[in-house]
């Protein structure tokens, strides 16, 4: 073992020398439990994040395994497969988490964001378990937050070098997505002449100018468009130079593709006909379009399959309003484990759940005090924080082993 000999000959303090000599990598196969590790993995990926953070202290092999990137990935994929999502609501400076499995959407927990200046931040985008928050009082300040692990990272957006002497440009649209090839999450901000991509792993921004189509500046009162995240892509639609989320015959669907780091066009599917009004959403991890004929009292939900083809998912009928009003005023949040469709309504704080089997639309009023901003948030171990801790200590007890 020449490597070990080399280590002992280097003149280092006794403590670290001993540490290196005694260090043997603990793996999950060292686990002493009654279950074989493969079965234990199957069971543990089904546990919520809170339990897993607690069970890190069961033993060394458990700590190593739960902290590993492979486990985080399998756990997130299992979370997706099991539809383990919570309803995230924001009311003033408190974030509420509600149980989608319970009929009255029971309160699971309340959290205040740890950084004071972000306590009233706007929820911009969600992807898996990560939330992009923006401090409304400072145009450059963002935070990536995982409410399941309660970890966060503050990031500031890139300087706008194109307009030195002018007012800083406002963001027109944003998005958040996962790059499976490198296991990285990316934030994308679209301005009018360029867009910027932030990599969580590299902790840096790249600015790109090759936007496929001109984007008009936002007028006062225009809303920033929060893109729809699916596996490896973020989607918006473009109508008369404005980035939106609604889709009709005249609009173009655009998307940021994480593999090529570029923004591309997607042709509008044929089922979007004349006098039709659709909206973009994410259902079952796929890009979805929901809507139909403007005047009809029903709408359809379509999802885009892996190969890019569109599949009809379901029809929602007996609407209390015409399709366009309903689709415009209700944001489709997603689909629960049982296949029920969850949406939220404006301007009052109501959550609508449609039960396809009974063809029943119910509404739940959550509180009367505020207007909650709701999203579905996946239970995930992915940490947005930079890995700087855990370097200290541990040597002393290694010495006595």
């Amino acid at each position, binding site marked *: 073992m020449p490597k070990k000999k080399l280590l002992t000959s280097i003149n280092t303090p006794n403590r670290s020398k001993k540490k290196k000599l005694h260090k043997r990598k603990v793996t999950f196969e060292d*686990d*002493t*439990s*009654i*279950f*074989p590790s*493969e*079965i*234990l993995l*199957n*069971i*543990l990926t*089904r*546990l*919520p994040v*809170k*339990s897993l*953070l*607690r*069970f*890190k*202290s*069961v*033993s*060394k092999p*458990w*700590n190593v395994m739960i902290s590993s990137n492979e486990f985080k990935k399998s756990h997130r994929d299992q979370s997706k497969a099991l539809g383990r999502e919570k309803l995230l609501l924001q009311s003033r400076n408190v974030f509420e988490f509600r149980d989608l499995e319970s009929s009255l959407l029971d309160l699971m927990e309340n959290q205040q964001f740890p950084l004071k200046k972000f306590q009233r931040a706007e929820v911009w985008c969600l992807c898996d378990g990560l939330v992009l928050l923006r401090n409304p009082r400072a145009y450059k300040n963002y935070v990536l937050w995982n409410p399941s*692990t*309660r970890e966060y990272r503050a990031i500031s957006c890139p300087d706008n070098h194109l307009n030195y002497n002018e007012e800083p440009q406002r963001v027109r649209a944003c998005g958040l997505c996962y790059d499976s090839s490198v296991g990285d999450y990316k934030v994308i901000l679209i301005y009018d002449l360029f867009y910027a991509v932030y990599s969580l792993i590299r902790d840096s921004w790249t600015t790109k100018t090759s936007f496929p189509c001109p984007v008009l500046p936002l007028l006062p009162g225009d809303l920033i468009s929060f893109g729809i995240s699916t596996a490896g892509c973020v989607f918006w639609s473009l109508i008369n130079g404005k980035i939106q989320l609604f889709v009709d015959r005249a609009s173009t669907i655009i998307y940021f593709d994480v593999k090529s780091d570029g923004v591309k066009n997607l042709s509008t599917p044929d089922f979007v006909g004349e006098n039709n009004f659709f909206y973009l959403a994410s259902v079952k991890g796929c890009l979805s379009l929901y809507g139909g004929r403007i005047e009809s009292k029903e709408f359809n939900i379509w999802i885009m399959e892996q190969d890019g083809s569109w599949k009809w998912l379901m029809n929602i009928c007996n609407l209390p309003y015409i399709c366009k009003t309903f689709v415009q005023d209700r944001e489709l949040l997603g689909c629960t484990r049982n296949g029920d469709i969850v949406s939220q309504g404006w301007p009052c704080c109501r959550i609508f759940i449609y039960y396809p089997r009974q063809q029943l639309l119910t509404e739940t009023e959550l509180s009367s005090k505020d207007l909650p901003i709701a999203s579905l948030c996946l239970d995930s171990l992915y940490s947005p924080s930079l890995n700087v*801790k*855990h370097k200290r*200590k*541990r040597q*002393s*007890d290694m010495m006595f082993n």
Partner: protein
Amino acid sequence: MVKLKSNDDKEFEVEEAAVIQSEMIKNMIEDGCATSVIPLPNIDSKTLIKVIEYLNKHINMGKAAETGEEDDLKEFDEQFVNMGWEELFDVIMAANYLNIHELMELCCQSAADRLKNKSVRAVREMLKITNDLTEEEEQEIINDAPWAFEGPEIDDTVN
């Protein structure tokens, strides 16, 4: 009919349509290795009875969706996993050995549901794990997320 023999020498006759839900036995039959009795040296008769009960109920899984018996099957599954921890452990090991995917999913989910709110001490006891962390290491893990160790749901009982 296929004959299965448990490790305490008891024989059980099971319909082929039911037993081929086990990938392992299905492969044995396809390879022509299941001529008379299939010995299962890892499974005792008590556990095998449970597994056969499951296989017989799930024999017409595909049909259930058409005839609207899904709820019935769901209810059966809920009742089925209503067993002691030791018993569940045996069924999981048997399902793993026989490679019955659906049964594995059902039982692992049940195990996860039971462990979910347990305290660290209870988990160690239930899974017979020796704690090899030093006090300092353990404290460090607690300090990283103290809130994960608190809450009215946390249950220190072992069952």
